[in-house]
């Protein structure tokens, strides 16, 4: 019998490095908790990355603002399933605005890892790829097994924007990485590196 939801067989460790061979090509925005830790550990907090430590539900919208204000740059939002679902209407906003430079990657571990691993909707009935496609996102892909990752990398390189990649990862802790929590400092550092470059 087919499972209702795709299994979660992908290891989140090393995932982003595999999906994005050239992180410097992107402006990167990571939603709070696990996604932020993975993104920070992957890039060693490059100047092209801003990670959120709060403002849950804001990652996609913040990435959309970056994409609309810097149409000449590629923007990628890396976020988790809980963060995304707190403001799922943002997917409709992205679809209507249709930025030609915005990529969204959802690292779905099916649980609220930061608060103790409580199960989330994507461990029950919710299909984020269906949600994104229903919102009207141009390109949507789901990956749940390690051998699908090369196709996911090609999708991120080639598919029409805005695009949404739903990655079903195994439960367990994200990267162990101590991030800069000073948002004033993070904003100024990001702007110094990226404002003049537009």
């Amino acid at each position: 019998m087919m499972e209702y939801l795709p299994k979660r067989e992908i290891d989140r460790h090393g995932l982003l490095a595999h999906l994005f061979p050239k992180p410097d090509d992107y402006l990167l925005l990571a939603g709070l908790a696990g996604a932020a830790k993975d993104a920070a550990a992957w890039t060693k907090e490059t100047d092209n990355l801003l990670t959120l430590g709060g403002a849950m539900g804001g990652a996609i919208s913040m990435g959309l603002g970056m994409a609309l204000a810097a149409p000449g740059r590629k923007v990628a939002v890396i976020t988790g399933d809980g963060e995304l679902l707190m403001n799922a209407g943002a997917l409709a906003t992205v679809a209507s605005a249709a930025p030609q430079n915005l990529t969204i990657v959802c690292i779905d571990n099916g649980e609220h890892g930061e608060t103790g691993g409580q199960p989330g909707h994507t461990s029950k009935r919710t299909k984020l790829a269906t949600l994104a496609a229903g919102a009207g996102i141009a390109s949507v892909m789901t990956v749940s097994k390690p051998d699908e990752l090369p196709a996911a990398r090609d999708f991120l390189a080639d598919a029409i924007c805005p695009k949404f990649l739903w990655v079903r990862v195994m439960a367990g802790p994200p990267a162990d990485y101590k991030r800069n929590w000073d948002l004033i400092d993070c904003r100024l550092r990001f702007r110094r590196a990226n404002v003049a470059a537009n």
Partner: protein
Amino acid sequence: MKAISPRAAWSRLIFDKLIHAGVTLFPYIPDFGNDDLVKLAETDNRSRAILLSSEAEGIALCAGADLVGGRGVLLMQSSGVGNCPNMLSLIQGGRFPMLMIVTMRGDYGEQNPWQYPMGRAVIPILEAMGVQCILVERENELEQSVDAALSAAFIAERGVALILTQKFLGAKAF
């Protein structure tokens, strides 16, 4: 012949000042009071109107634009202020510039009782989250108030709400 909206003249004044200040992104939730302003942003080739699902998105969107040197303004009705506090922690915590233009319901002459609870809570909520409120009650206050809001947002880099009251807008009749 299509009647000219009573909001057309002051909407044009606000729009021109925003454009002059370098604002290009106009995320919005539609309201009776901001309808003309949104139409200007949709039709002018220097600006872009972006329909949101929730006001909170507009705060994050403007902060994202700031990260790459862009400027935005969030256009919304007062009832949507209740959707914003958590996202405003981004503005206060990161000292992002943030300009909101809030068209009021539930403050002066309102007939719909559903509008009063949020109407009365607008200023306490915004102030609790560190957003300065600049109220416009009369037409002759508008120009200076817009300038003050632009200075607070984009020069001082703070959160500020330009609040267009029902004394200024006129209350919607049912």
